[in-house]
């Protein structure tokens, strides 16, 4: 049986305690200066959009998280990892 393919998004961003100067610049010098005062915070990150073969959504997530830890796709000292799985290709 061929396993289905799942789309998984990995988002790596600085932990709240690690300053994100790019996000700070975007909110200060672009959004607030342009009048979008209602924006209270901007955090930037890196998105890896991948496709993976797995038996189900939970399996897809487990495989991706294990790989992220194994290859140190994020630095746990400074980054948080957010993994989102959706079915389909």
């Amino acid at each position, binding site marked *: 049986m061929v396993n289905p393919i799942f789309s998984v998004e990995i988002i790596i961003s600085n932990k709240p305690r*690690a300053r994100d100067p790019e996000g700070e610049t975007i909110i200060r010098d672009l959004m607030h200066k342009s009048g979008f005062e209602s924006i209270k915070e901007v955090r930037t990150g890196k998105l890896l959009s991948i496709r993976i073969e797995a038996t189900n959504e939970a399996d897809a997530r487990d495989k991706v998280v294990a790989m992220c830890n194994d290859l140190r796709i994020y630095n746990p000292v400074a980054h948080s990892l957010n993994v989102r799985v959706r079915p389909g290709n």
Partner: protein
Amino acid sequence: MKVAVVQFPGSNCDRDTVHVLKNSLKLDAKLIWHNEFNEAYDAVVLPGGFSFGDHLRAGIIAAHSPATKAVRKMAAEGKPVLGICNGFQILIEAGLLPGALLRNTTLKFVCKWTNLQVEANNTAFTCAIEKGSKVRMPIAHNEGRYFADDEQLDRLETAGRIVMKYVDENPTGTSRGIAAISNEDGNVVGMMPHPERASDPALGGVDGMKIFESMLEWTKC
């Protein structure tokens, strides 16, 4: 003394480092392509640059290279291991040094001479320098803001593992002015400043020589 300078795709100042070791210090220094780290060496230097285009994160791809495997073994054997700039980033990503090196708070690539204070001289790369003395070396990087949580920073301070701090200014927003740290045994040092760019009067300074001279001293002990 046989020293390997590892060359990754995108390394720079690798030849400068070999030049200093070979021509100024008269050591048997070799430039070694990262996939061809096969011989035994007494010490190793991971040079600066932008290994693998800094893709994903500076240093992370090189941290998985065959050369880094050999570096890990040398570190465990107590041999001197120096990471300069991108080399420091590689040592962090390889888990040989703690913490993280994040993008400078200035959001700028900072390329300038800096004043540093040597905070620890019980390391393989500062043992020939008096503790507390000031040295001058250039930095040139975009991701050199050392980051760790406060408890970890306290532990590093207490253990005397913060090797160098910037003085007069904090050019990158780095935690507690940190420019260089070491492992517990002091044989592995990562530093953002470039000693090889400060090892010839023609380049504007010679303080970097002390880093490499320390390596020689260390191996004699």
